[in-house]
């Protein structure tokens, strides 16, 4: 996989993880904060309402308690005085009640006379019976019992009432009970639900929901949840696709009356919308971050890939032998170092290659290779070598009237052609001396058939020369001399400048044979003739009397194969 793809994937993964984590954490944090705020709101709302209720309870309870200890009412109830209700109304003094009823000691409601001030004369027996039950139960507890009830008002709408029941007694003798009801307001907060205070509240009396703040749908959903836990726990209810949180508070804890509740509800719709909005925003940020990260990855990978690509190209070029290529400086420090290092390496290689090529130019490739690989022993050794000399017949005539460039070109062309033939026959060019070529077969390395190859090479050279001569304007003719024998091979010269060459009398013999050879002739010594085998027919020549040789040396002319 390409580096850029990996980088892109890595960055995208990081962006994705970061975005998701951010989203999760943000939403979770939001939810926690919101729940805390909701709890706070619930508490505030309920506290305000409950405190007001408590205040009203206390006031009503005080009123009821005063009535409960009224000697007059006690006496009147004890004697069932006809003016009982009148006395009670007088004793109540303030008119802060919707209605009140007196019960005898058995809990039977005493019907008020028609002109009484007890309120709501139309109340039926059935309505009052549950009250009397609670009042009777409350009588045994000897304190004010608080309950809630609903009554239909004029438009048949249910209105909530707070009911207080208190036993009327005096020093242990119970003569009856008083039941007093007050209208309860359903205004839970002065301004109603607002954006800042989205709590909607309702009263729950006898499993009926009474509120002007809660719509029918929510009420319906809540109705099904009414038996959920009370107080201190916030429960969740689903209303038409969105969720709401609600909480119940008992309004009359420990009362003989059935419990009534304050129900507070907060719709989560706006919060959920906010959460979705947040999710979208974070997703958008993630998307933008991904795009930026992609671009960044592209940029970074380019920053890296381009120098790498250049490096690859350069490496390939170097492998192909182009050492002149240099890497441009890179923008990143590491890449720059690498490029510099590479350039240094390339320069070194180039230098070495130049040395190598120079070495190859000035020495034979085989010798150069041998020298480089350490196969050639510089110290010198005795080797059985066939030495070849080849020079141009009539060179002086050839060079007359020519400028040096032409001469060099002519010579180089000739030498090049001859060198290729020698090298094709694994011969080693030992030196070019003027118009002469000196080549070795069997040094620095022997192939076993050195003499035979040398002869074949010599014939091939003549043939090549003939072939070239047909094409060029200035034909060149050569004569070749070959001699074989044991001679000293090694690098000869000064400390820092030497040549690989061979030294021995056979070398001189080869040079003499060459000079004796006429154009198009190959002369060999006896050793060579013995070694070249029957494939090359030869004819003896008159022995040569040579300087430095005591006896005349036999020489043979190798017959050129009849093509």
């Amino acid at each position, binding site marked *: 996989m390409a580096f850029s793809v990996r980088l892109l994937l890595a960055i995208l993964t990081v962006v994705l993880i970061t975005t998701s984590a951010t989203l999760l954490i943000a939403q979770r944090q939001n939810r926690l904060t919101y729940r805390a705020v909701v709890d706070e709101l619930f508490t505030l709302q309920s506290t305000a309402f409950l405190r007001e209720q408590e205040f009203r309870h206390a006031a009503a309870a005080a009123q009821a308690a005063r009535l409960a*200890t009224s*000697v*007059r009412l*006690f*006496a*009147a109830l*004890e*004697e069932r*005085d006809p003016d009982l209700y009148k*006395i009670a109304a007088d004793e109540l003094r303030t008119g802060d009640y919707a209605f009140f009823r007196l019960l005898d000691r058995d809990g039977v409601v005493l019907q008020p006379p028609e002109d009484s001030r007890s309120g709501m004369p139309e109340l039926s027996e059935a309505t009052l019976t549950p009250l009397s039950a609670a009042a009777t139960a409350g009588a045994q507890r000897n304190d004010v019992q608080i309950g809630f009830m609903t009554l239909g008002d004029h438009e048949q709408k249910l209105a909530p009432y707070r009911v207080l029941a208190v036993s009327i007694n*005096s*020093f*242990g*003798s119970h003569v009856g009970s008083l039941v007093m009801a007050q209208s309860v307001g359903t205004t839970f907060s002065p301004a109603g639900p607002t954006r800042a205070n989205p709590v909607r509240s309702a009263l729950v009396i006898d499993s009926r929901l009474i509120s002007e703040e809660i719509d029918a749908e929510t009420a319906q959903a809540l109705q099904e949840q009414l038996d959920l836990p009370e107080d201190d726990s916030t429960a969740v209810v689903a209303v038409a696709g969105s969720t709401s949180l609600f909480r119940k508070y008992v309004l009359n804890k420990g009362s003989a009356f059935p419990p009534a509740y304050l129900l507070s509800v907060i719709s989560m719709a706006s919060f959920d919308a906010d959460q979705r909005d947040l999710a979208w925003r974070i997703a958008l940020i993630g998307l933008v971050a991904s795009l930026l990260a992609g671009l960044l990855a592209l940029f970074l990978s380019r920053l890296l890939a381009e120098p790498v690509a250049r490096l690859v190209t350069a490496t390939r070029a170097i492998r192909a032998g182009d050492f002149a290529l240099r890497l441009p400086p890179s923008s990143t420090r590491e890449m720059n170092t690498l490029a510099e290092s590479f350039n240094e390496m390339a320069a070194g290689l180039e230098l070495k290659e130049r040395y190598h090529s120079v070495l190859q130019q000035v020495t034979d490739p085989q010798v150069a290779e041998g020298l480089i690989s350490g196969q050639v022993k510089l110290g010198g050794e005795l080797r059985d070598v066939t030495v070849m000399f080849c020079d141009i017949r009539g060179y002086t005539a050839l060079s007359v009237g020519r400028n040096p460039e032409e001469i060099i070109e002519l010579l180089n062309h000739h030498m090049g052609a001859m060198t290729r033939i020698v090298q094709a026959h694994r011969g080693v060019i030992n030196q070019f001396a003027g118009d002469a070529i000196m080549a070795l077969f069997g040094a620095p390395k022997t192939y076993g058939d050195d003499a035979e190859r040398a002869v074949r090479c010599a014939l091939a050279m003549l043939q090549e020369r003939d072939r070239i001569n047909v094409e060029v304007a200035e034909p060149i003719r050569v004569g070749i001399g070959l001699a074989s024998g044991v001679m000293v091979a090694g690098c000869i010269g000064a400390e820092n400048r030497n040549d690989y060459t061979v030294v021995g009398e056979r070398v001189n013999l080869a040079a003499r044979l060459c000079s004796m050879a006429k154009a198009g002739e190959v002369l060999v010594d006896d050793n060579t003739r013995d070694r070249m085998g029957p494939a090359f027919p030869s004819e003896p020549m008159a022995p040569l009397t040579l300087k430095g040789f005591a006896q005349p040396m036999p020489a043979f002319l190798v017959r050129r194969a009849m093509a």
Partner: protein
Amino acid sequence: MRVRTMRFRFVIWMLMLPASMLFMFAQAVGADQDAGTVEGTVRMGTSTSPPAVAQYRTRTRAPIQPADGARAIVWLSRKDGLYPAISKLPQAQVTQSGYQFRPGMMAIRVGSSVTFPNQDDEFHSVFSYSLTKRFDLGRFRKDETSPPVVFDKAGVVKIYCEIHRHMRSILLVLESPWFTITDEAGHFRLPAIPAGDYVVHGYLPNDDQPTSPLKVVAGATTQVGLGN
């Protein structure tokens, strides 16, 4: 002079006549020699609720005194409902003293009048919603005289003070002249009861009203036990 004498005699005569009639009636119904004595004990039972002052806070200058000890009223009734006439309207008194009605329980004959003098240094109020006698004297102080209340119907009258709700008194208005109040142990003695058949009634502090038939034998003492 003669005329005056005649008139005087007539007046004397007219005065004498009812007196002699009364005397004769008294002789017929319960002459001393035909009378017996009723003695006995009333078991008070547990008094359900003696007024417990400590149940509420009072703001009186002087400390509240304890109420009178629990006693019971015992009276005799006749089957024929005939009782000796009252020679003189008796005047009874229920005082308010030490923040208590005293006596806490009292029997009177029908037609008697009762005054309720306040002997404390603070206001008291006296009222009753009893069907026997419904009256309300309102509040009055020590130096204010309250009008006497005439109880002209037989029955129980419970009397309260609106200001001090522990204060209560029970007046038993009776047709019968034969009644007494027991001591705190429940002992009672009713002397000079004409011999005959009676029902003996008790009125206990806890409003129980036990009854028992009784035969009074001349010159003898009949022992009676009342209550559970």
